[in-house]
């Protein structure tokens, strides 16, 4: 069964007749307006907390906490994982970024719900299977995890935050994300177009 085309509307409305459903997904906002919204959230973080946004840091904390919980002697010997065990005293909920990511999960849901855009589905192009998409997603995720740790941040933490601060490293990081993305786009085009 091709699960990619299975759509379960969250509100349980059924397709009536030919493609007419009670709650259709609303169109997205003007990206510039949404961008201003993002910028104001980022600014609020600077003003209130004295630091910007972030996402990859939360993943580091979760991974390290997991390693230290499951195999503490293993984690102790590794200088990366052992740092995190000190800093958050084995409680990931004490980490600001972890809590922020919980907020992101909630906020994304609220927006998607209100706009009738919640849909249990797999986003992918026409010419690839779900399994292919999952393979690419996992590998792509792993590569991003490594790239983000190398650069001390991801698009939210480095590109957006550092970008607004005119941070040299952040701008370089951001420029090379685009370079890397465009360079690889041709080779993975089967997944999307």
């Amino acid at each position, binding site marked *: 069964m091709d699960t990619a085309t299975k759509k379960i509307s969250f509100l349980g409305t059924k397709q009536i007749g030919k493609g007419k459903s009670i709650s259709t997904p609303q169109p997205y906002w003007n990206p510039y307006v949404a961008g*201003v919204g993002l910028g104001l959230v980022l600014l609020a973080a600077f003003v209130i907390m004295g630091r910007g946004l972030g996402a990859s840091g939360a993943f580091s904390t979760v991974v390290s906490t997991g390693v230290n919980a499951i195999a503490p002697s293993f984690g102790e010997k590794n200088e990366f994982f052992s740092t995190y065990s000190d800093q958050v005293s084995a409680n990931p909920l004490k980490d600001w970024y972890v809590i922020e990511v919980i907020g992101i999960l909630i906020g994304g849901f609220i927006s998607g719900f209100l706009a009738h855009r919640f849909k249990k589905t797999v986003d992918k192009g026409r010419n690839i299977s779900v399994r292919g998409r999952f393979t690419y997603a996992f590998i792509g995720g792993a590569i991003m995890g490594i790239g983000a740790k190398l650069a001390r941040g991801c698009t939210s933490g480095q590109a957006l935050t550092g970008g607004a601060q005119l941070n040299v490293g952040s701008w370089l990081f951001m420029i090379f994300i685009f370079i890397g993305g465009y360079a690889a786009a041709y080779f993975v085009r089967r997944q999307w177009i």
Partner: protein
Amino acid sequence: MKLTQNKILAGSAIILSVFAVIAGSPFSSKKSYINPEQFADTLISKKQNLTVVDLRDKKDYNDYHIPSAINVNATRIDPSTFDQKNMIVLYSGRDNISKTIQYKFEKEGFKKAYFLNGGIDDWMNKIIFPVLLKNSSEAEKKNFENIERRSMYFGGQPEREDENSVKKIYRREGC
């Protein structure tokens, strides 16, 4: 409608940034901190009317404190007991606590209160135990002699890096 909305946004951004060119720098000249190097030189020059305050616990203070520092715990410090005419340098382990206390002083009208940027941590890494990295520039290598002299003034131990001497820790930077 969308086009006009975007044009308003773009126009506002351009106007704000043109004014930014005119404004020049967003930083005010009033600095609230002093860097460890600058502070070390200030101490060496035996500047008069300088008060140094260690905001940490008594135990940390007794283990090590910056020469001439007095120990007043951050929870008990009262700006009114200090002389506004003096230069006051406040420090803690890093600078999270000292930043807050410095702001307290600033609100009370102290114009010469500063926190030590990086606290005892940076003081140790930059003044007491400075390390000359292998891949430093020539200018840095020449300047290191001054850094070594300053370190030894405070009874420190400067170090020139080789394969074995650098401490191996992962510092969490970034998000």
